[in-house]
Structure formats: structure tokens, C-alpha cells
């Protein structure tokens, strides 16, 4: 047994001590009475029945009142204190619930239920220190109770207390009574914390159990795939995710994860194949459409990619990233008018989309002929959002240069250089401008600086 399991922080010790003495405090709260034992038993039965009905009807305050009276009549019955604590917790009186549950635990230390309920109350209160103390207590007293630790792990996982869920899942595993559910929980948590070897071992143990439902085995294969990927082993990762799809073709996540891994390996055509397979199985799925459209474009199947992304936007017009992918496809196919149009549509749907005006300004520069007034308008809007973005001034310089506004162009390009002094691009444009203005010395110096900066990269 671990010494540490028994040890608690001084604060936790103090709070447990305070809770343990609550037996006498409850006794002190009771009115003095001289009821004979038979009458007391009749009253207890009556209170028990009433309270049960009240709990079922969610009349928690009344149930608390009845359980309190019962506790006064039978101050050594752990079941009454457990019920009182549960009803107080249901009524939202967590402090009182803790006292009653600690009393129940004190009266019947061999029963884990009060500690489980105490853990739940501590979670409801967001009191992590007390929760840790309760879990440590359970670890010491019920080290071999695998089911208890598995149930705690599952509960903590549902409440997104991942670290403590992991602690309890490990305790359950150590106690030796692992179930497929608890092993899956553990594998997921181990994958999340970076214990990839453990996660792979546990997940593959589940995947290999042919008596389990295919959905469970497929999930396990998926977890193993993600762990392999995280451990830097892409081939077994891809293989496990293919197995997940084969086991249960109805799990959308498997297609998404596998396509992502294939994307990372620049195997876009294979990613398309996987996502199309998913789409055939799950024709109503919209999450598959964005990666499919994107991968079609990366595979240079522009027309198909554009169709998929348009379909996605018909179904989910607020899928903003799809507009960007679509604009990219239009740019790559030389459809500059459509590129500008789709970015405008994005801007009207989400005026706060990051960098939208800069994207629009860039796109307008690809039009033939270029409407420089519109470009400059977009750049003015972009500057309002991001006044220190060097590219805004670089593009503004180019626009002024093209429209023979030399003075404005010089100012804009100088500002671009100020904001991004290591980027050779603005120096080049500025040098060209000086050349055009006949300022040969300035042009020569600026060209020299551009070449000088470029040589950093060559070094």
C-alpha cells in the first residue's frame, strides 16, 4: 500500500476531520425527544417512504427535511446519512451533503458508496483539492476494487477532469478487473497524455476482441491509429485507421483522421479516395466535405473540388474556411472574378474574418483590368484592423506605383520596409520606383539593400 495514498495535504486532513466529527454535530442539531422505540421505528418507516416519493418527484428540500428527522431518530444508521447527503446534494446544499456523506462513510467504512457520492459532490463544487483527498482515501481503502475505480474514472472523464480520470483508470487497471469500457477509457486518456505505447497496447487489445461490437473495436483501432501517429509512426497509424473504417464504415471520425494523416504525407489522391469512400457510406455527412474539397484542389482536380465546396456552402453557409479554399481554387484556375466574388461573399457573411480585406486586396490585383480604387479601399479597411501589417503597405505601394502616384507609393513602400525590414520585396518595388523617378543613386542603394538582405538567406 502506498504511504502517499494515505497522506493528505494539511488542508485536506483538516476538512476530513471536520467532516468526521459531524456525527456528533448532527446529534446536537436534533430536538430532544422521548419517543419509544416502536413509535420511532414506525416514524422512520413513514419518513423513508415519504422521502423516496419526494426524491422521485424532485421535491428535494422536503426529502432533506424528512431524512434529517430520520437521522435524529437513528443517528448510527449509515444508510440514512447516505440518503440525507444524496438529497442535500440534489437540493444543491453541497456543504451539508459533504457532512452527511462523511458521517455515512465514518459509520460504515467498508462501503465505498459514500466516498463515490462525496467525489461527485466535490466535482459539483469544483473543489479539486477535496476531490483529490476523497480519491486518495478511496485508493487506500479500496485499492483492489477495480469496478469502483473504473466507475470513478468514467465519471471524471465525463466531467472532463482528465488528469484525475487517468489516475482512477490506472488504479482500475492495476486492480486487475479491467472491462472493455474501462480499458478504452484508459487508452483514450493515455493517448491524450502522451503515453502512446500504453495507449496502443490497450487499444489494440480491445480491437482484437472479436466478441465485442464492431463499433467499439473500430473506436479502439482509431485510438491506436492516433497514438501511432503521435509516436511518429505514420504507416501503422494509417493501417490502424484503415482497419477502423473496415470494422465500422459508419464512423465519420475514422475517415477524417485517416485523410488528415494522408494529407500530412502529401498523399492527397489517397486522401480523396478515403473521403469519397466515406461520402458514399455517409451521404449526409457535411464534415467530410471541407477536407474532400480541399484535397481535390490539392490533387489539382479543381472542378470537382469547386463542386464539393459549393455543395458544402449550400448546406452550411457559415463554414468560412470553405470560402477561402474556394477562392484558392478560383485563383489557381485563373478565375479571378469568381475569386473576388467568393471573398466578397465571405466578407459580407463574416466581416470579422481574419485578414479578409487583405485577401480581397490581393485578389483584386489579379483582375484584368485592375480596379485600383477598389484595391486601395480594401487596403484602407485592412489597415484599420491591422495597422502594423507590412503587406498592406507593400500592396498599397504597388497599387500607387501602377497608377503613377509616385509620392504615395514611396511613402507606402517605406512604411512596409519599416514594418518588415528583413523582407526584400518592398526594397525591390521601391528601387524600381526610384529608377522610374530618375533617382539613380537611390535606386542603386535600394537594389543593393535588397540583394544584401537576400544574401542572408543564401548564407
Amino acid at each position, binding site marked *: 500500500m502506498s504511504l502517499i495514498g494515505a497522506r493528505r495535504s494539511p488542508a485536506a486532513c483538516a476538512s476530513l476531520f471536520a467532516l468526521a466529527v459531524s456525527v456528533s454535530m448532527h446529534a446536537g442539531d436534533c430536538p430532544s425527544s422521548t419517543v419509544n422505540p416502536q413509535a420511532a421505528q414506525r416514524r422512520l418507516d413513514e419518513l423513508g417512504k415519504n422521502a423516496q416519493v419526494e426524491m422521485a418527484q424532485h421535491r428535494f428540500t422536503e426529502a432533506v427535511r424528512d431524512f434529517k428527522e430520520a437521522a435524529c431518530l437513528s443517528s448510527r444508521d449509515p444508510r440514512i446519512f447516505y440518503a440525507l447527503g444524496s438529497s442535500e446534494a440534489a437540493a444543491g446544499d453541497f456543504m451539508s451533503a459533504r457532512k452527511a456523506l462523511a458521517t455515512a462513510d465514518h459509520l460504515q467504512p467498508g462501503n465505498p458508496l459514500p466516498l463515490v457520492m462525496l467525489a461527485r459532490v466535490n466535482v459539483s463544487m469544483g473543489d479539486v483539492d477535496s476531490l483529490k483527498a476523497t480519491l486518495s482515501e478511496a485508493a487506500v481503502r479500496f485499492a483492489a476494487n477495480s469496478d469502483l475505480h473504473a466507475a470513478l474514472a468514467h465519471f471524471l472523464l465525463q466531467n472532463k477532469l482528465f488528469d484525475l480520470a487517468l489516475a482512477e483508470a490506472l488504479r482500475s487497471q492495476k486492480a486487475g478487473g479491467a472491462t472493455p469500457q474501462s480499458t478504452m477509457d484508459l487508452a483514450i486518456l493515455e493517448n491524450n497524455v502522451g503515453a502512446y505505447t500504453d495507449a496502443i497496447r490497450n487499444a489494440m487489445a480491445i480491437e482484437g476482441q472479436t466478441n465485442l461490437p464492431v463499433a467499439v473495436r473500430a473506436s479502439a483501432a482509431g485510438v491506436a491509429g492516433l497514438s501511432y501517429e*503521435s509516436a*511518429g509512426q505514420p504507416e501503422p497509424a494509417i493501417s490502424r485507421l484503415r482497419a477502423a473504417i473496415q470494422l465500422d464504415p459508419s464512423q465519420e471520425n475514422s475517415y*477524417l483522421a485517416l485523410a488528415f494523416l494522408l494529407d500530412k504525407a502529401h498523399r492527397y489522391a489517397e486522401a480523396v479516395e478515403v473521403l469519397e469512400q466515406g461520402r458514399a457510406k455517409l451521404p449526409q455527412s457535411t464534415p467530410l466535405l471541407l477536407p474532400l474539397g480541399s484535397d481535390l484542389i490539392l490533387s489539382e482536380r479543381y472542378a470537382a473540388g469547386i463542386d464539393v465546396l459549393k455543395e458544402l456552402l449550400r448546406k452550411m453557409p457559415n463554414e468560412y474556411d470553405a470560402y477561402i479554399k474556394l477562392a484558392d481554387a478560383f485563383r489557381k484556375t485563373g478565375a479571378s472574378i469568381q475569386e473576388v466574388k467568393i471573398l466578397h461573399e465571405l466578407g459580407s457573411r463574416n466581416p470579422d474574418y481574419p485578414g479578409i480585406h487583405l485577401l480581397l486586396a490581393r485578389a483584386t490585383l489579379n483582375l484584368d483590368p485592375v480596379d485600383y480604387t477598389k484595391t486601395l479601399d480594401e487596403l484602407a479597411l485592412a489597415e484599420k484592423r491591422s495597422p502594423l501589417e507590412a503587406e498592406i503597405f507593400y500592396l498599397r505601394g504597388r497599387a500607387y506605383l501602377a497608377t503613377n502616384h509616385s509620392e504615395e507609393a514611396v511613402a507606402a513602400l517605406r512604411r512596409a520596409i519599416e514594418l518588415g525590414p*528583413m523582407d526584400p520585396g518592398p526594397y525591390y518595388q521601391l528601387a524600381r520606383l526610384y529608377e522610374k523617378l530618375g533617382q539613380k543613386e537611390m535606386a542603386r542603394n535600394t537594389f543593393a539593400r535588397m540583394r544584401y538582405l537576400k544574401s542572408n538567406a543564401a548564407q
Partner: protein
Amino acid sequence: MTRRDVLRSGAAAFLSPLAGASEPQNLSYPLREIQGSLTPSDLFFVRDHFSEPTLSLESWQLRIEGRIARPHQVSFSDLLELPTKKLEAVLECSGNSPHGSAASNAQWEGVPISFLLEPAEIGRDAAFVAFEGVDTGRLVQGPAALPYTQIVPLEKCLDSASLVAFKLNDLFLPRRNGFPARALFPGWYAMDSVKWLRRIVVLGRDDRHSSFIESGMDRVYNRITTAADGIETKRLSSIQVKSAIAWPPDKMRLAAGLCEIWGFAWTGTGTVREVAVSSDGGRTWEPASFTPSPGPYRWVRWNYKWSASAGDYSLMSRATDSQGNQQPLQRSTARKDGYELNWCAPLTCSVR
């Protein structure tokens, strides 16, 4: 669930391209890649002595023994369910070069070592604590591989900031940074913050710890200075005050105009009080501004706006801490070791 959600769930992921590496790793990344003041986990430096072990959470145990009344073992579940402490601290390799990037600053979480030692009743004769990792090898010729071991004074171990750490920047430790748990001694050079921790042994003043001695670990990480009466040897401990220029890199070519020089400064004693920058090889100094406000153990990010005209320059930075320690302008000629390289080494740049 979107693809992004699916990938986020596999999250911790993608940080560790070298997972599975069997050779000792020696990795660091340019300081200029750090945005803000925390080093991201995937840019945190790595200096291994021996091959990185692969550990199982399910079987990992930390044994605590030696001069204590109640030796015991701690499982990973126990660590997670004990009260923890979070703090921001720099770790620096003691052999990090003057502008080197073997220094990183992160948010750590772990259990104070004192929480593990004190309830076990530390013996009155205890003076030091040995920390052993799972990684094994040796620095000198010998028959068997021995666990990586460092010995730290008990007083430092009982400092509330000294941890058995299991999280870095709110995520569990990456394997290469000591998963599942490592020692952490804020303010001290990194070799004592033993990774892949498996055993803590409380020692008396004259106790010999075999793996420390026989592996040759006692012969490294010592400050060796020539003194009037011979050679003095002292074990390294506190990080010496230091600053590093992250930008521009050495031999950079810059265009004339307003340039930003920036970097980081840290100390193991007190807090950083000021950072100054020189562009003329240390003849004149200008104060740099820094963020966030200085605190113990963590570094500050400093920056200096430099109006550069054409010419060749020698850039230097110099930090001073709240204890009055200041970076020396040169390496002391009395030093005969290769550690604590905190002098103000210049970088060159040319401006056109």
C-alpha cells in the same frame, strides 16, 4: 464533430517527431522562434546523457528511500491525486553557450518534493538527496551501465518550488523532456532536474551513492577555478545571471533604419533587474525594456529599438539581477571548466 475536433482529440500529438529515438538527443531551437515569453513544448531544448527510455504509465513507480523512517513508492495515480504546484521557470543547460538556445522557459506543474519526503520522516542526519532516472549509461569506462543520477542538497529539495514535475505548459511532459515525471529545481542548472525519474534516495553527509560516483557523474558539472593556493572545485548549482540576443542572429545583414534587437534574460538568484544593450562592443550601453514584469525563476523578454545607420556593429546585451549580480564582459581566465558561460559575448551585424 469536425475534422479539427478529431485532430484536437489526438492533440498532444504531433509534438514529438523524435519519439522512438534510441540515441541520446541534443536538440535546441533558435530563440527567435519563441513568441511571447513561454517556450512552446516542441521548442524546448533537450540534452540527454543516455538513450531516452520508453516508460509505461501503468508500471511506473517512484521509490523514495534512504535516510527516512518510512520508505515508500508513489504511482503516477498518486502523483495526480496529490496537491500540486504550478510555476514558471527557466531551465538552462550548464554548458549553454553565451547566445545559445539550450535554455527554455515554461510553465511547470508537479508535486513539491517536500510533500513526498516530509511525511516519510526525514532522518536527522540527512543532508543530500540522490535523484535517479530510468536512463542508464556511464561517462567513464566501466563494466555496467548505471542510472543517470544527480545529488542535490536536502535544503534545496525542501524548497516549496522544487517539484516532481509531470506537466510542461499545461500538457503532460513530452517523452524527450522526461515523461512521465522529472525533478525540477527552479533557479538551478538543468542537469539536476533529472528526467524519467524513478528513485529518490535521502543521503547522509558522508554517504556515497554508487551510481553517481561510478558512472563518473561526480567528475562533471563542477566549477573549476585556479586560485592562489591551487585548484578549487565546487558543484554547480544556481543559474548565473544571463541575457541572450535572439534577434538579429550573428552575422546578420540589416537594412539601415529602425531595427529591433530583442532577446531573453534570466537569473537563478532573485529576479532580473535590468537589461542593457550595446551596439559598439560594450563601450556604451542603452537600457532595454522588458516584459513580463520580472519574477523569480522565470525569464523576461527584452527589446531595444535601434536606429541603425550604415556600418559594421558589435551587438551585446547585459543583464543585472536583483542581487546585484551582473553578466561579466569576459570569461574569467581563472575558469578551467566549460560551464556557466554567461559573459556578454558580442554578435556582429552589418547595416547598409
